[in-house]
C-alpha cells in the first residue's frame, strides 16, 4: 500500500512540503508509528487538499491505529478525487466492514476484487449465496485458513436455513416443510416432535427422498433399532443406489444381530461408495460375525489404510488382533494389539 501511495505521486505534482509530509508519513506508517503517520498525512492533506495520496495515507494510518470509523471520510475523499484507486477502494471496504457497514462496503470490495472480505461483507449483509461462492473461491486460494473456513461454514449454514425458510413460507403444509420441521426437532432432540413431523411429511408425499433416512437416523440415535431398520429399508427401496441408506440399514441390522443380512447390506453400501472408513469398519464387523474372517480382515485392513491413526483404525486393529488370535498367529495378534493400545493411549 505504501508503494502504491508513492506511485500516485508520479503524475500528481504536489507541492514539495506536502511531498515531505507524505514521505515522512509513509515511513512512520511503515514503522508502525501510527500516531506520527496520522499527523504527517493530515499535514499532507492540509498542504495539498487535492492530493488523493494524502487522504489514502491518512485513512490507512487511522486504520492502523484502530480508528476505522475515522478512516472512512479521508478514504472517501481520496476516491472523490480519483475514482480509480483500487487500493483505496479496498481500504474503504475494509473500514466500512469493520464498523458494520457491510452493504456499503460491498461495492468497494467488489471493485478491489477482495473476494475474502467481500464474502464476509456479503455474509453480514444477508447475501448468503454470493457470500458462499466468494468464500469458497477465497478458500481455494488460501486453503487451511480457519477464518475463511469459519465464515464459509456460517454462510452455507445460513444459506441453507434461508432456503428452508423460503420453502416453508412458500408452502408450509408441503412434505418438505414438515421434513424441515422434523429436522429441527431432531436437532433439539425432541424425538416425539420430530417423529410427528417426519410422519406428516411421509403422509403428504410418501416417496419423498431422505425422510425415511432421517427418521431412521433419529430412531438409531435413541437405540430403537427395529424402527430404524424399517425406515432405512424404506429409504433403500426408494433409493436403491443410495450408499448412505444401505450403510445405515446394514448398521441397524448389525445392531440387532441380524448378521447375514447386515453383511449383505454393508457389502452393497461399500460397492455403491467404496473407500469409506465407517462403512468398511462395519462391513468388517459384520463379516467377522458372519464367520467370513477373510472378508473381515480385508475390510479392516482397508480401514487402517484410510484412517491410519483415527479411532476406527484403533477398532480395526482390535478386530484384527482377534482374528489373528483365533488363527493362532500370536505374533500378528500381538502386533495388532500393540497398535490398538498405542492408538488408545493417543486418544485425547
Amino acid at each position, binding site marked *: 500500500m505504501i508503494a502504491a501511495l508513492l506511485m500516485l505521486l508520479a503524475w500528481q505534482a504536489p507541492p514539495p512540503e506536502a511531498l515531505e509530509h507524505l514521505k515522512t508519513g509513509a515511513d512512520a506508517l511503515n514503522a508502525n508509528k501510527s500516531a506520527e503517520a496520522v499527523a504527517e498525512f493530515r499535514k499532507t492533506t492540509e498542504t495539498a487538499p487535492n492530493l488523493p495520496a494524502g487522504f489514502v495515507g491518512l485513512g490507512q494510518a487511522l486504520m492502523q491505529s484502530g480508528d476505522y470509523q475515522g478512516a472512512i471520510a479521508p478514504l472517501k475523499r481520496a476516491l472523490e478525487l480519483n475514482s480509480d484507486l483500487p487500493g483505496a477502494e479496498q481500504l474503504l471496504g475494509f473500514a466500512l466492514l469493520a464498523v458494520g457497514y457491510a452493504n456499503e462496503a460491498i461495492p468497494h470490495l467488489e471493485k478491489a476484487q477482495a473476494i475474502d472480505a467481500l464474502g464476509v461483507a456479503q455474509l453480514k449483509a444477508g447475501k448468503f449465496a454470493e457470500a458462499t461462492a466468494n468464500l469458497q473461491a477465497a478458500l481455494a486460494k488460501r486453503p487451511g485458513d480457519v477464518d475463511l473456513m469459519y465464515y464459509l461454514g456460517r454462510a452455507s449454514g445460513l444459506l441453507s436455513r434461508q432456503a428452508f425458510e423460503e420453502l416453508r413460507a412458500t408452502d408450509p403444509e408441503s412434505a418438505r416443510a414438515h421434513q424441515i420441521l422434523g429436522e429441527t426437532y431432531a436437532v433439539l*432432540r*425432541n*424425538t416425539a416432535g420430530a417423529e410427528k413431523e417426519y410422519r406428516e411429511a411421509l403422509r403428504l408425499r410418501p416417496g419423498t427422498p431422505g425422510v425415511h433416512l432421517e427418521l431412521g437416523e433419529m430412531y438409531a*440415535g*435413541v*437405540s430403537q*433399532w*427395529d424402527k430404524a431398520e424399517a425406515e432405512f429399508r424404506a429409504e433403500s427401496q426408494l433409493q436403491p443406489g443410495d450408499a448412505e441408506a444401505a450403510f445405515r440399514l446394514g448398521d441397524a441390522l*448389525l*445392531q*440387532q*444381530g441380524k*448378521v447375514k443380512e447386515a453383511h449383505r447390506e454393508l457389502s452393497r453400501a461399500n460397492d455403491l461408495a467404496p473407500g469409506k472408513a465407517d462403512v468398511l469398519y462395519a462391513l468388517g*464387523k459384520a463379516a467377522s*460375525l458372519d464367520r467370513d474372517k477373510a472378508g473381515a480382515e480385508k475390510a479392516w485392513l482397508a480401514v487402517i489404510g484410510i484412517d491410519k491413526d483415527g479411532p476406527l483404525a*484403533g*477398532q480395526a*486393529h*482390535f*478386530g484384527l488382533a*482377534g482374528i489373528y*488370535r*483365533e488363527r493362532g498367529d500370536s505374533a500378528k495378534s500381538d502386533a495388532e*494389539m500393540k497398535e*490398538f493400545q498405542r492408538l*488408545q493411549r493417543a486418544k485425547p
Partner: protein
Amino acid sequence: MFDLIIVRGSAAVCALSVAALLANVSESIFEVSTPGGLTFKHENSPTPNKHLIETMGGGVALLDYNNDGLLDIFLVNSGRIGLESKDFFDRGNPRYWNRLFRQNKDGSFTDVTAAAGLSAAGDANYGMGVAAADYDNDGFTDLYVTSYGRNILYHNNGNGTFTDVTAKAGVAAGGWSVSAGFFDFDNDGKLDLFVTRYLDWDLKHSKSCGVSPKIYCSPSEFPGTTSLLFRNRGGGTFEDVSAVSGIAAKKGKALGVAFADYDDDGFTDIFVANDGMEQFLFHNNRNGTFTERAIEAGVAFTDDGKRISGMGVDFRDYDNDGRPDIVVTDLARQNYAVFHNEGGGAFSSQTLQTGIAALTGNSSGWGMRLEDFDNDGWKDLFVAQGHVMDNVEQIDPAVHYLELPMLAMNREGRFERADSGASVPVAGRGAAFGDLNNDGWIDVVMTVLGGKPQIYRNRLGASKRNSAHWLTLALRGTRSNRDAFGARVLVNGQSQYVTSAGSYVSASDKRVHFGLGMATTAKIEIKWPSGLVQKMDDVRADQFLNVIEPQGPQ
C-alpha cells in the same frame, strides 16, 4: 428344611418344548410389591456436592439365616452425608442402619435387625454391598457387609444372632469397597473372600463436575485402586493374599465380581467388572496365584475395542453349551456386554447376536442375573436399571435416571424383551435372586437408590399358566466347602456354577435352580470342588432336592 432325597437310576429326560411354554406366557411373569413388614428405605443422602458415592449403594442379600427353609432379606443402608466434614457418614440414627428382615410363614417380613445384633453399622461407614456364605462351615449363613470405610464380617451364631468378628477375621479392608463374594479359590474346603474396590477416593478429594448443570463426576476423574483377596485360614481368620496372589498387581475401578471355572480346570476364576476401563478376568493358576487374562480371553473390551462402564456381572451359561459365559451391565450409550465362552479359554462377543445390544443401548444396568424365570430350560436376564446421574436428561434426553428393570426372556440363546411387571421407573441398584415362597419359580428383590426395595414375585407357579417343571438343589459339601460354592451342576444339559455372588452389591439364594421345561425327570451330574463327581438319574421334577457330597468316590 427341605426333604433330603438322593435318587439314582436311569435317565428319562423329556425334551423341552419351548413353543408350548411360550404359548402360555403372555402377561408379566412378575407381580411387583412391597410385602408387609418390609419397612426399609435406603438412605443415600444426596447432597448438592454430588459426591459420586451417593449414587452407588443399595446392597441386598437373600439368605436363610435361621435355617427355617424361608429366605430372609438383608438390606444394606448407606448413611448420612453431612455438609460439614465432621458429619460425614453418620450411621448412628436407626434410619441409617442395615436391616435384616426375617420372612414369616405367610410371606410377610419382620424386622429383626436389633435382635440379631446387626444394628451397629460402624462409625464413619457408608454402606455399599453384601456377601453371604457359611464361611466357617458351621451350617449357618454369615454376612460380609462392604462400605466406604470399614467392612464388617458378621458371624451367624446359629441362634438368630450375629457377632461382628471383623477384627479377629482380619477382613476390615478399608477404602471404597463395593461388591464382594465368597468362593474357594484353592479348593481347600474353606471359603475365601474377594472384595472389589472402586476408586482411590476420599472426601478431601471428592468433587463434582460440570457447572450448569452440576453433575456427578465420571470415574475417570479419580484414580483406580486394587481389589482384595482374603484366604480363609480356618479358625475364623483370613489372610490378605491380594499381593501374593497377583490380584493386587492390577489396579482397577471394580464394581462387580462373579466367579466360575471358565476353562474347566477345576479351579474357580474371577471376573471383575470395572467402570470405564478394561474388564479383568483373573485366571486361577491352581497354585494360589492368579493371572489377569481379560485381553487374551477377549473379555476386556467390547467387540469394537471400546471400554465399558462395567457395573454388574454374571458368569453363567446362557446358551446351555455347558460353559459359563459372561454378561456385564454398564451405562447407557454402551450396550450390556455378552461374552460367549468358546472353550479353550477364549470368549467371543455376542452382544449383537444375542439381541442384548438392541435391548440395552439406552439403559444403565446394575444388579442382574441369568435365571430361568419361566422354567423353560433357558436362563433369562433380569437387570436393575437407572442412570448414575440424577439430571442425565438435561444432557441426553433419550437417557433416563429412573428406569424400569429389564426382563429379557431367553429364546434358545437370543433374548427378547418382556414385561417386568413394573410400571414406575426407579433408580434400581442391587438385585438378589431366589425362590422366596418355595414354589419353584424364581423371585427377585431389587433395591432402589434412596427408596424402598421392590419384590418381584414370580406368579407363574401360582397361576398355573405355565406347565413347565423345575428342580432346585441345595448342596451341602462335606469334603468341599459346606455351601458347595464352586460345584458345577449339570441338569438335563444345563449347567450352573454354585455361588451366591455376582450381580451388583448383592448376594442371591445359594440354592441352585433349574427350569426343566416339559421334562418331568432330571439327570444330574455334580462336580464338587473336591473333584468328586456325583451322578443321579431319573430324579423327579418339581422338588427341592438336598444333596450331600458323598464321602467317597462315586
